[in-house]
């Protein structure tokens, strides 16, 4: 049996300053496995991957590949040992072309110095074909959408011809269409007997493509199971150490009351066109669509940060002046933005400062802050959404993703709003936190707030929303009620295949 083990990690420990990210973790992976790693936010999955990929160096422990102890001190060492990684955080050079980004650090050379541009393009084209992405490799990276970025990242990892590829939440910014291509690709890789380590919070995926799963909890190894021998509920229990009653809260069909938001003919050139819909108090309106369908742009436009937008937005009977955040905020419109690290939080500032940012007026008089009151409000809301932090004064960057997201939610909930727009509220968030956030959204709806929910996770949209609008290429294509919607139907409208079948 032991001879079967292709990758063996023994007693890996890794600390960052005072934080123990991995504690004595040992794992064995066989050649050709598609090996899932699961665990809550901050469990240490990415850290483990990064140690294999040479980005972090373990404090202690050994890595054995194919029976040999190897030292991985840099990403280059990892390449040389046939290991590459698809990173969770997208990272590219925006002003360089796709081809160059794909060849970064491994340029084909002519005469040993000059970069062979032709070969670079050729290689890039082949890679793009492999991942089924039809783009000109000369295009600059900054012109790509998030999903395309993610696909390039995947291409980048397979470009090295590695024997071991680590995927760290590759689907968190992909929509169903790309996920399908990715899975096709993974199947191909499996056929080539390439060993895959697959990190994801999405249960269904794990069950679809992986054959084994290991669970980490708080940096410690918990267990490895064969996928065929485990259930979702068991896995969740291993991950969080307790049972979760229900995955999604049961939605209470509140009676429709007054219209709280009315959007008429909202358009923004190149982003979306002719959007009209209504939202009632206490209702959760879901927006489904492929990545790039224009959902986030609508949210941003309603929030008042789009300077090209035209049309009419009425909130609670008042006409909103467009492209004017102040006016939106005054009218009780708030937005939990899509990208928590870019748009949601200033990572270097404290939890409290981040929380207070849109709420400064609540505890200031003539501009002067009442810090005691601020502390009270912060504590109040942090306990309401159960943010876990030892002090509200520690920098948000020290918090796990789930807790960071809760702070973004908290800061907007505190802002006394009538309309809450949440964009990808649970992206990259573990199941425990996810359930908590779903509960919060649901409770808010019950208090009579109107909620717009944008999510690329179809189960999330379907289970939380009372109505669902499907978008494609910047246009509304279909509206479903809660009863009508199912994953298959939505997907067909999203991809434009509604007439087939």
């Amino acid at each position, binding site marked *: 049996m032991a001879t079967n083990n292709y990758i063996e990690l023994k007693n890996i420990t890794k600390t960052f300053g005072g934080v123990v990210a991995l504690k004595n973790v040992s794992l064995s992976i066989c050649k050709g496995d598609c090996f899932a790693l699961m665990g809550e936010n901050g469990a240490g999955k990415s850290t483990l991957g990064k140690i294999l990929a040479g980005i972090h160096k373990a404090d202690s422990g050994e890595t054995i590949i194919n029976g040999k102890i190897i030292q991985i001190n840099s990403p280059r060492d990892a390449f040389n040992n046939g290991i590459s990684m698809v990173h969770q955080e997208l990272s590219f050079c925006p002003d360089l072309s796709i081809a160059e980004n794909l060849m970064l650090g491994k340029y084909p050379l002519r005469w040993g110095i000059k970069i062979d541009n032709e070969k670079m393009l050729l290689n890039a084209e082949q890679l793009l074909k492999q991942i089924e992405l039809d783009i000109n490799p000369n295009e600059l990276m900054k012109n790509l959408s998030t999903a395309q970025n993610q696909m390039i990242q995947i291409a980048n990892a397979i470009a090295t011809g590695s024997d071991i590829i680590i995927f760290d939440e590759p689907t968190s910014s992909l929509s169903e269409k790309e996920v399908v291509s990715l899975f096709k690709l993974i199947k191909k890789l499996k056929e080539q007997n390439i060993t895959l380590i697959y990190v994801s919070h999405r249960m269904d995926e794990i069950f679809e493509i992986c054959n084994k799963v290991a669970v980490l909890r708080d940096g410690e190894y918990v267990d490895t199971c064969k996928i065929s021998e485990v259930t979702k509920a068991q896995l969740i229990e291993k991950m969080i150490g307790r049972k979760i009653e229900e995955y999604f809260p049961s939605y209470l069909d509140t009676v429709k009351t007054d219209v709280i938001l009315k959007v008429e003919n909202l358009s923004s050139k190149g982003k979306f066109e002719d959007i009209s819909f209504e939202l009632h108090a206490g209702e959760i309106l879901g927006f489904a669509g492929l990545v790039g369908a224009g959902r986030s742009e609508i949210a941003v436009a309603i929030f008042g940060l789009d300077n090209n937008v035209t049309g009419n937005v009425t909130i609670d009977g008042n006409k909103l002046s467009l492209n004017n955040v102040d006016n939106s905020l005054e009218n009780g419109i708030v937005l939990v933005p899509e990208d928590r690290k870019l*748009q*949601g*939080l200033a990572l*270097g500032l404290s939890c409290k400062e981040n929380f207070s*940012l849109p709420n400064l007026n609540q505890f200031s008089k003539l*501009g002067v802050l009442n810090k005691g009151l601020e502390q009270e409000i912060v504590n109040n809301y942090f306990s309401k959404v159960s943010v876990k932090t030892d002090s509200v004064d520690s920098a948000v960057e*020290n918090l796990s993703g789930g807790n960071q997201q809760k702070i973004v939610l908290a800061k907007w909930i505190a802002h006394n709003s009538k309309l809450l727009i949440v964009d990808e509220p649970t992206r990259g968030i573990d199941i425990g936190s996810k359930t908590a956030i779903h509960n919060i959204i649901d409770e808010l709806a019950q208090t009579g707030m109107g909620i717009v929910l944008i999510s690329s996770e179809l189960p999330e949209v379907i289970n939380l929303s009372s109505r669902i609008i499907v978008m494609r290429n910047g246009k509304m294509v279909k509206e479903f009620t809660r009863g009508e919607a199912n994953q298959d139907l939505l997907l067909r409208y999203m991809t434009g295949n509604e007439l087939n079948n």
Partner: protein
Amino acid sequence: MRFDFSFIKKSRQETGLVVVVILIMTFLTFASDTIFVSGEYVNNFFRIDNLIPNVFTPMSWMAIMAIGATFVIISGGIDISIGSVFGISALGTVAVLQNLPETASAWYVIPLAFVVALGIGMFFGFINGSLVVGLKIHPFIVTLGTMSILRGIALVTITEKSLPGFGKTLPTSFTQNFISHEMNYGPFAWAKLQPIPMILMLLFAIAAAFYLNSTKWGREIYAVGGNEEAARFSGINVNWVKIRVFVLNGLAAGLAGMISAGYYGSANTATGEGYELTVIAAAVVGGASLLGGKGTAIGAVLGALIIKLIENGIDILKEIDFGIITVYVSKEYSKIIIGLAIIAAVAVDRLSSSFKSRKKVV
């Protein structure tokens, strides 16, 4: 649970700076000679008639400007035109006040001085900020341009190159009776101290610290520097915050220019040349991060103090006897020592903060 500890955490860095100040002062006290002045043997460094006139007073305008620079730096910007703004405010103040009779009333003169100096500073700060925001150009470039433009304006408009012009002088209610007022009474009458610049600096520092720490406008500056996009998505008018920090920086440079003008009773077209770099150095030594989001007013004052103490040390020390070896310090070494000090100060800060373990809460 409810007590606000943020104060202590924020001031941890300032505590470090205070320790550095104390170390430098102790060193200078031991390293400097005992000299014989006004009939007494005293330590050449540690005596009130060295510290106040040679350290605290001339650091006043530098510290005020460093506070201004800190505003901009916290917001994630940089302003290298402050030397020129300082110069043109000082010139403007003198240009206006020199036309008043020498005996003009303080009630008229002093408010006028403030209005002119702060007005000029804020005006050019506003120009800087508007260009940064309006043209979306990196503030380094914008202020590189305005630095040159403002100096050019001073050269073109002030044909005498140095003010007050021939046969003119500033009202004494502004100079001798205000900014350069000499304390020839009280216990230190013999030392003829001129405390006003120092007092103005302290008042400004307190106001700035309050503004940054305890008002919503201050918080907004940290937010914009911490993450501009997140600030925008929190409904903050980022452009306006950016303009505001430049205006405040201009105000600081204007105030500093006015104090300098009053203290020296004059200004010229070269006044403030090269100050931008010293001022930024003071702000950075005081803990401001050029990446934005970090910095304090008190830190800026301490940064300026450290630089001034080093300069004073170079002036005072001729030779330092280390027991085994004796080092001769010449004024020529000042650039080397100050350069080393800037790097060392920031390096120490960097190292000490990387020792403070990063805590993570799950």
